[in-house]
């Protein structure tokens, strides 16, 4: 693997995760928020696969596979929800959907 240590992969994953979190907290466009969530998931996947290689057991890859399956489902359902949200409120701004407050 040359002189890349496993730690470096973790750092990359953590960085991507951080970017995703910031995106979720900051952006107001619903769809972009969703994409940032996908970023977070991918970062987690990277971490998993890296660990899997480091340990030598392919269980981590299977875990990552399952994460992908769940992410796919989640995207499908989430986008369906977004579509119905837009149909009802005609806006992609998440701040317009904050009625459940005190």
């Amino acid at each position, binding site marked *: *693997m*040359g002189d*890349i*240590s*496993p*730690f*470096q*992969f973790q*750092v*990359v994953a*953590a*960085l*991507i*995760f*951080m*970017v*995703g979190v*910031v*995106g979720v*907290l*900051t*952006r*107001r*466009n619903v*769809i*972009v928020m969703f*994409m940032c969530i*996908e970023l977070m998931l*991918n970062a987690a*996947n*990277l971490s998993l*696969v*890296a660990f*899997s*290689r*480091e340990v*030598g057991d*392919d269980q981590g*890859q299977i875990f*990552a*596979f*399952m994460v*992908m*399956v*769940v*992410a*796919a*489902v*989640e*995207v*499908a*359902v989430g*986008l*369906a929800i977004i*579509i119905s949200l*837009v149909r009802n409120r*005609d*806006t*992609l*701004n998440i701040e317009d959907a904050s009625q459940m407050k005190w």
Partner: protein
Amino acid sequence: MRTALFWILSVAALAGSIGVVGNVRNPINSALNLVVTMLALAGLYVLLEAQFVGLIQVMVYAGAIVVLFLFVIMLLNLRGSGTAGAEVQPLVKIAGTAVVAISAFFLLRVLSTGRAPWPDVDPSYGTTRAIGEALYTDYVLAVQVAGVLLLAGILAAVVLAKKRLD
């Protein structure tokens, strides 16, 4: 060689992710940046000798999920809905970044203690065949459950996004 690949792919993934978040103008831009990230990650997977996962990453993530995103963006943009992608309170942004950074720091501190070098793995590690065998023997239940989950997701998506016919 590998080292170089690692650095290139990592930088690409990071640049892509920042592009997803920081792109204010157009969600399509964000989506395309997401694709770049996905592909870079796929490369990283292959670098980690996880061929199957890398393959699936391209097929499912870059090939289906992001496409779905694009479709939805285009579908909804045609309705002329306004998007205000401008950053909200910078305070929130800073606070959030700080929180994540601090926790990442702690986590990485744990991880960084005395890394052993990469162990040797036999050539069948991470191949489609090996993963497939594991999936259909040890993890059959998970596969079945995943199937049910996918079914549920399809039904949910259809029902939720359906246009009312009245």
